[in-house]
């Protein structure tokens, strides 16, 4: 190592020490808990694990989780793209207020988010009497779970797309417009190819949070077994019944989903990092 390099880098021993300290910290805080999920799930063997997953309540929780994600992810994707289009391709008053509003759900406690919906749709809520009269159930039912999931995942797609589309500017779309293309075709043929990886990235994060949300969904769901229990709620129910193998079995499915999310996310960052919004997520 040259003298110049030595002056702007640490000695080998210092580097080794710092790397070891960082790795040890991440191992203690992140890796051990992750490993423990799978260890506990398979503590009594594969048969016990499979039995726990095949329970009717577990299956209905898995189905509900996928249903909720299948509704809430497209809604927030479409609305997020619409918001990003309005904000980056047009000028209007109150734009920065709109951008700030999109950020707000990230800072609200999930429990508070769930409570807000109870105050609207619960029996004592604003629309409680009207909903009861029309025999529509939102709180303590699936629509409430979807709403709670929608608010906690609201920002992901828009937050990924807004900085990305701002950096890309409007020239390409304006050129397409000059050539006489209608709006939807400009979006599909010009904008979408430019933002597809960023959009996929946002959808990936939305989906991970949608399938894993706990606090907001817990407040609004009413915990009806086999009916309004999503996978994370089922984990809690089983855990509180001291049915640890079953709790960790369902949890390991969610942990597997998290690992898949991380792998796809990392691949997107390596392959298409230049087509994602700058900065970390």
């Amino acid at each position, binding site marked *: 190592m040259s003298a110049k390099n030595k*002056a702007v880098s640490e000695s080998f021993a210092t580097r080794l020490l710092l790397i070891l300290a960082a790795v040890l910290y991440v191992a203690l805080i992140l890796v051990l808990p992750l490993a423990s999920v799978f260890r506990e799930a398979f503590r009594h063997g594969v048969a016990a694990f499979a039995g726990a997953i095949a329970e009717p309540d577990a299956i209905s929780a898995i189905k509900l989780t996928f249903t909720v994600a299948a509704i809430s992810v497209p809604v927030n994707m479409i*609305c997020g793209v619409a918001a990003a289009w309005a904000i980056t391709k047009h000028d209007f008053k109150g734009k920065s207020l709109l951008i700030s509003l999109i950020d707000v759900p990230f800072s609200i*406690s999930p429990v508070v988010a769930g409570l807000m919906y109870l105050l609207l749709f619960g029996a004592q809520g604003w629309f409680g009497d009207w909903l009861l009269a029309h025999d529509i159930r939102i709180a303590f039912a699936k629509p409430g779970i979807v709403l709670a999931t929608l608010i906690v995942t609201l920002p992901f797609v828009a937050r990924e797309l*807004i900085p990305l589309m701002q950096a890309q500017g*409007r020239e390409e779309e304006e050129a397409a417009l000059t050539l006489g293309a209608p709006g939807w075709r400009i979006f599909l043929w010009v904008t979408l190819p430019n933002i597809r990886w960023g959009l996929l990235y946002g959808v990936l994060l939305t989906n991970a949070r949608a399938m*894993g949300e706990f606090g907001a969904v817990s407040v609004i769901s009413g915990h009806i077994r086999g009916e309004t229990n999503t996978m994370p709620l089922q984990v809690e129910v089983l855990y509180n019944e001291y049915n640890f193998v079953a709790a960790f079995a369902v949890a390991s499915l*969610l*942990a597997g989903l998290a690992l898949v999310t991380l792998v796809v996310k990392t691949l997107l960052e390596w392959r298409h990092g230049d087509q994602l919004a700058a900065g970390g997520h």
Partner: protein
Amino acid sequence: MASRSQPSRRKGRGRHSPLPGLPLTLTVTILWLTILLLLPLVALFAKSVTLGPGHFIEAAFSPRAIASYRLSFGAALVAAAINGVFGLLVAWVLVRYRFPGRRLFGALVDLPFALPTAVAGIALTAVYANSGWVGKPASALGLHLAYNPIGVVIALTFIGLPFVVRTVEPVLADLGKGIEEAAATLGAGRLTIFRRVILPEIFPSVITGFALAFARGVGEYGSVIFIAGNMPFKSEISPLLIVTKLEEYDYAGATAIATVLLLASLTLLLLINLWQGREHRRRAA
């Protein structure tokens, strides 16, 4: 989560964009935010107002509620401070050094963003309770890590790590080595360079990451409740107290505490935005 979008102020100012779609997309956006966010927020504040100031203060600042704020804010502060130090270390190692498994290590840092909080909660309890991999040796030394406020700090440390790492990392990566070389030429030692040259440059981003982790920790629920012990006045976080009130059908009590938490989060969000806006301008200058 750290990237802040700055509205473009130069492009297109003072002229109308010729592109189509504004009425449709803006309507969709406003409906989306109104139904999902604004209406529920108004419902919460309206409910608080109907309680009347006396009843509101009584519910929001009961001794049990105050104990829960102390724990939620205190534990979030301690966890964010721990991550301020170790998150900086992790970011430093990721940006400055090359070692086998570095990319895997970097990818793992995002685990708390991807892992559902309830899963994190039971996993952390399994590791840090007295029978766990870390809890067992610790309890042999008389140190109990779960079912007390220490458990809350552990859960919030897990949740907060990526906020600091992902905020500091890009700033550290952008930092050229020229200024360090200049300082070294002038005879400064490595530690002095870090303290006097590098740290002042990256410290604002450490503060941002710290604040983001703190804000997230204050409202965190899922990862905490399994490891906390949940004893009123001792290890009961504010979000759990809201849930407890709801289970007792005490909507007024739940709403009062939720309003305090919400106002705190919105204030934090505003402060973080102002701080980041200032940093953007400083770095752009």
